């Protein structure tokens, strides 16, 4: 059976990769993803995995090699952060459009400039429309669990889309946590073998990948991607249930934390959800009706499910660790508010931009947000729709 260990987020992701035994891993170093690849490199050097470890000369080539290897029929994984993800962006889009089930850990880091190696979500949000499934993680355990589930989700015939698993840079990637890991055999039989229908190496049945697609077909292919994303939701839930049977840890599209009777709620992604839980627990002790929705699956966005979970809420704060400059709030805010518009739910929604470039967010600041929400409930109006937490000026 599995065992209890202490691992950093990077070690957890590296451990998952080692247990998943991908056929090909193209990689290029970038902080804070580096230690993840060091761990994997050790496994390659010691012969613990039989992976082709392709140490490319850039992230652009990492994703390019991932596309080639995946089209050749290999199980492919990689990892990057921030600028590395931005450099591979062209091919990130191509990977999804070619329906290649590559799984990547994105160790979240702020995008330059100014250069900054610490956590925010500008990188993953920059890739929100690339056609990748996005699974967000609160802690190292979830990074590990999401990677294992990610492979099974990506390779499902009804999906065939790449999956990105996020891990908050430094906050998770470099922090030691107690966690459970499965044994190798459990992981391997959970994901099974990858046997795609068409591959480049099937030389007796030649296929062309990546043709020129003009206005007479391109749109249909994009429509198929939309449908695959819609189908992914069901598959993510199925895989989550199966994973619960294996590990005892259940996964859905989001986690409802203390939402029973909650009037004031926060929606957040990633490690911040853990801090919000702390604040919620404290306030609940004082009898306050507060709760949290920790979004796990950002793509496909769980619209209907969120509406069901938000019934009874009277005011909502959406936490964004990235910004859409010149837009109406952060990316999660616009998504949530758009989901609510036209539904039978009618309450105020506020946006809180926080933590850019790794700025810490305290429990006290979250408590202040809940008291802001109390004020909105009382006054029935919103002073500031888009708010910035913990920033000077």
């Amino acid at each position, binding site marked *: 059976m599995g065992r209890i260990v202490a691992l950093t987020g990077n070690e957890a992701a590296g451990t998952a990769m080692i247990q998943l035994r991908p056929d090909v891993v193209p990689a290029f170093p970038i902080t804070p993803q580096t230690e993840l690849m060091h761990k994997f490199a050790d496994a390659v050097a010691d012969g613990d995995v*039989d992976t082709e470890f392709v140490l490319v000369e850039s992230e652009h080539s990492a994703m*390019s090699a991932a596309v080639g290897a995946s089209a*050749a029929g290999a199980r492919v994984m990689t990892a990057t952060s921030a600028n590395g993800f931005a450099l591979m962006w062209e091919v990130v889009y191509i990977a999804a459009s070619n329906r290649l089930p590559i799984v990547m850990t994105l160790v979240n880091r702020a995008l330059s400039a100014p250069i900054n190696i610490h956590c925010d979500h500008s990188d993953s949000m920059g890739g929100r429309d690339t056609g990748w499934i996005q699974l967000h993680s609160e802690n190292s355990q979830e990074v590990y669990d999401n990677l294992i589930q990610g492979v099974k989700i990506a390779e499902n015939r009804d999906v065939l889309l790449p999956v990105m698993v996020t891990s908050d840079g430094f906050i998770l990637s470099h922090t030691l946590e107690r966690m459970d890991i499965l044994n190798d055999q459990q992981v391997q039989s959970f994901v099974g073998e990858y046997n795609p229908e068409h591959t*480049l190496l099937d030389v007796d049945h030649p296929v*062309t990948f990546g*043709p020129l697609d003009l206005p007479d077909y391109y749109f249909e292919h994009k429509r198929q991607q939309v449908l695959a994303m819609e189908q992914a939701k069901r598959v993510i839930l199925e895989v989550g249930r199966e994973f619960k049977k294996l590990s005892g840890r259940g996964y859905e599209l989001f986690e409802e934390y203390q939402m029973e009777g909650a009037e004031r709620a926060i929606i957040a992604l990633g490690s911040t959800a853990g801090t919000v839980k702390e604040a919620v627990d404290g306030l609940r002790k004082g009898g306050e009706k507060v709760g949290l929705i920790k979004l796990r699956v950002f793509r496909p966005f769980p619209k209907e499910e969120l509406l069901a979970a938000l019934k009874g809420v009277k005011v909502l704060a959406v936490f964004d660790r990235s910004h859409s400059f010149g837009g109406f709030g952060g990316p999660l805010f616009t998504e949530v508010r758009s989901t609510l518009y036209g539904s039978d739910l009618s309450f105020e929604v506020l946006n809180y931009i926080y933590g850019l470039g790794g700025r810490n967010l305290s429990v006290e600041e979250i408590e202040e947000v809940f008291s802001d929400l109390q004020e909105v409930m009382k006054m029935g109006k919103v002073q500031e729709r888009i708010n910035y937490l913990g920033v000077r000026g």
Partner: protein
Amino acid sequence: MALSLKELSHKRDLLSGGHRACAGCAASTAIRQVLLAADGPVVAGCATGCMEVVTTIYPYTAWRVPFIHNAFENVASTISGVEAAYQALKRQGKIDREIKFIAFGGDGGTYDIGIQALSGAMERGHDMLYICYDNEAYMNTGIQRSGATPYGAATSTSPAGKKIPGKREFRKDLTAVLAAHDIPYVAQAVPSNWRDFMAKVQKALSVNGPSFINVLTPCPRGWRFKDNESIEMARLAVETCFWPLFEVENGTWRLTYKPKEKRPITDWIGRQGRFRHLLKEENRHIIDELQANVDNKWEQLLKRCEA
């Protein structure tokens, strides 16, 4: 396989007819020659550019071998991923066939935007052949200058204007750059000397590790000559020593063809519209500089081949 026309004529073309290349396109001829020279199963990749665009308009494909196009600058890294998958799956016993991997890129996708991916793939030692079909400009996007465009040539972004008479820089010697990677096999070729070219392809595919062939593929649209003269233009590039035929095998340089008589560069450029403005008296010095450059490079090459 012996390289006799009789035998080759019985072999099935692995790039079918019916694709949309321009009349007289030498690049499509070069690809057919490469695929005919390869004996066993081949997986091909192509950078974005003329050859990718004309051969794979969905729902059609001209490729009778497995083919992948990814993007403009990354055919080398894409094929290195395919080759890595092959090594992994072969080791696991999931594949038992011997398969060769060939990446095709134009000069834009190879000399310029793709040079980083190419250099990386060569350094990593993937067992793959990279063929650059060099037509000396970004032909697919409308004849813009590239790092391979010769000095003085007029292109859409280096036009022969009133003040500036065409491209102001000499071309990059990419074949030498690749030779400096110390890979097992590097060569320069043309489709007109087909036996030389195909023998080089066979040699390149037989080495264990990366190989690179730079093949000059005249382009009637971009160079401005009649579309029945492509092969002649390739031959003249060789006879003028603008495009010498040589190979570098494990670091040893060798001429594979030496013209009986080195013809002046004007014999080649005088036949192409892109150099027409150079024939004016005030531009005579550009021709002289071009000739001097060809002479220098040729002498350098002879020395390398003698050493």
